């Protein structure tokens, strides 16, 4: 049997192939170390790259939900504060009604009570027209229309009772606004009750005062119920934001697991590859001298 002939061209070709392959590994390891990523191209790991792409889109959506929820939380907090002040107004009106029922009132003191009630009414009106970022809280979807207008001694409602739903995350939708129907419209309606109470105090109509007082109780408890709902929504927002943040942490970990370089591994393969290149080049230098031609005199 004849031995395989090894010509210089074969030796050189094999050497080049091998050194190129080693240098490609060296290059890959360098790229991993400098970028910190194992997947720098879609073709490096198509599955991981496309997973990472989807994860990035989910994370971006989560971030946006979180930002939206922060904004909603501010709005809900303002709503809560406003509802508390409405409850205070209602409580103040009740105190004034109780004073009017004490039996020792004079026309002067009743006039003073009526004036005090005006103050309560205007505070309530101002709360009812509260705005968040330029949008009215209690005008339904007509957020640019001032909802409660005092005209001719009576407060009329200009807004609507449409709910404003908001998405807190992919699956949770909440009603983000409290409407006139929920709070003021009644019956008994807040502003007409206040107006009726004032008239009753002025007229010293104790029966009417009593009935208005009981209406105010109903109104207070109605506002309290809504305030509790708002408080619940605030807690939902907090819970969902916490979940979204946890989800993003998990996704970051997953994305990093999919695409990040294992630096220890990358560095050790860099070392291996660079050693291989060194040794390969040295060996080739020595082999080059092995030819019969060199030994002939």
């Amino acid at each position, binding site marked *: 049997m004849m031995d395989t*002939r090894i010509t*210089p061209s074969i030796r050189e070709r094999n050497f080049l192939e091998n050194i190129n392959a080693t240098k490609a590994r060296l290059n890959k390891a360098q790229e991993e170390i400098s970028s910190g990523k194992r997947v720098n191209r*879609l073709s490096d790991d198509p599955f991981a790259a496309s997973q*990472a*792409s*989807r994860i990035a889109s989910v994370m*971006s959506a989560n971030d946006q939900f979180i930002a939206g929820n922060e904004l909603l939380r501010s709005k809900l907090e303002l709503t809560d504060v406003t509802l508390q002040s409405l409850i205070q107004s209602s409580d103040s009106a009740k105190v004034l009604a109780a004073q009017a029922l004490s039996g020792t009132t004079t026309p002067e003191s009743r006039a003073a009570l009526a004036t005090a009630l005006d103050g309560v009414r205007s505070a309530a009106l101002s709360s009812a027209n509260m705005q968040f970022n330029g949008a009215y809280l209690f005008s339904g979807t007509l957020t640019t229309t001032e909802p409660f207008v005092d005209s001719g001694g009576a407060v009329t409602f200009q807004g*609507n009772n449409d709910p404003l739903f908001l998405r807190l995350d992919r699956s949770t939708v909440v009603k983000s606004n409290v409407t006139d129907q929920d709070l003021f419209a009644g019956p008994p309606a807040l502003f007409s009750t206040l107006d009726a109470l004032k008239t009753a105090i002025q007229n010293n109509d104790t029966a009417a005062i009593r009935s208005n007082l009981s209406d105010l109780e109903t109104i207070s408890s109605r506002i309290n119920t809504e305030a509790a709902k708002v408080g619940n929504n605030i807690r939902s927002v907090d819970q969902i934001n916490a979940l979204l943040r946890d989800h993003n942490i998990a996704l970051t970990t997953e994305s990093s697991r999919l695409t990040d370089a294992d630096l220890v591994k990358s560095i050790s393969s860099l070392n291996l590859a660079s050693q291989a290149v060194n040794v390969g080049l040295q060996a080739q230098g020595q082999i080059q001298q092995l030819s019969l031609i060199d030994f002939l005199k």
Partner: protein
Amino acid sequence: MQSLFGNLEVGRKSLLAQQLALQVASNNIANVNTPGYTRQRTVLQESLPLQTQAGSIGTGVDAKSVQSARDQFLELRLTRTIQNSSRDETVSGYLNQVDSAFESSQSGVQEALSSFFNSFSMLSGDASSATMRYSVISAAESLAARFRGSAQQLTTIRENADAAVTGVVGEINGLTSRIAKLNQQIEEAEIGGNVANGLRDERGVAINELASLVNIHYYEDEDGTVSVSVAGRGLVTAGHAESMWLQPAAPYGFGQVMIGQADVTAAINEGKLGGLLHIRDQVIPAYQTDLDTLAQSVINQVNTLHQGGTDLQVPPTSPTLDFFSPASVPGAAAAFSVNPAVAADTRNIAAGQSGAAGDNANALAIADLANQRVLSGGTRTFAEAFAALQSRIGVDGRAAKVQLETTNAIRTQLQNSRDSVSGVSLDEEAIDLIRFQRAYQASARFISVIDQLTEDVILTIGA
């Protein structure tokens, strides 16, 4: 009966033969690095013996011929592998470009899709806010720009491939004319029965170069000329080369490859040209379709919902405007744009369904589109469809790389095998040098011995 002078003739023939063999060996050494060079061997043969009463006596040596050490079968396989590896190299190179264009941090489509739907989500938080409305327009503009950018990248890569097709066809024509000319020269040189080894080597190199460009079939005729054909159409026949040319075809003006009046585009599937056509006519168009389908779906779905809403104009625009400029699937990504009327006046965004300033029902519905599986028969969201396209590009790129590594390994193996048969080994040539030098010296010595004998005879008789 051998005479003394007859012996001189034996010496002379030996000197000539050894000298020729030395020349061949030195030519081999000189061509050790010449691409495509096939090592040559001097074929020595014993001269016709003389019949004597004592039996037959040799009359020395003849240099019968100089042969190239060629393995036709290996050469053919090598040609085929060169076609494969050159195609794979081309495909892999172009896919690399697509890969980097669609890598997440580069393309930005995925991010822009999220931002766009999120901007509607934010708008739903405060539908009357002009600021939020501007963010929606700006996110939409950026989404449109990302789609257009990605579409442009694909178009550019496709056009580059087309430009390269033109270049390669030029190269092919150059090579076929060269092969035709070499055919002529070989035919002329070999009329006397010689073998034109050098010219054949040169033609072999040209054929391999041609094979790296396009899938060819070739065979050698009895007269020593080579016929080359592509898809059954003759490119080279003896001394004649048929031109390959490009016929521009609608709709992009990309050239169809023609030989004579025949369109051979579909049959070209190997070599650099095969790779370029594969990229230009199949790979990129498939990606374009995917991207266009996604773009058209985004445009269409958003528009449908948008039209179901009510904008903030007084009275509300009826019918409600399109949000994006409508587009049909082919070219949808390249034409992706926000309806200029909506971009110009943010009140034209239909965030609500009732006309109330704060109504956010429609904005919510549009934001929710991001999570709807509206593509691929209701199985994929927009983000998933884009990730699927990325995955497709990645898988194609990876497959091409692996394929290229495999064909390159086979190519190297075959080149090594070919060199093992046809390449010049310096050790071998060095041994030949010693062998033939020694034989030459011995023959010269032999002549000198005969000379001595002749002298002896002349002196003895003359004395």
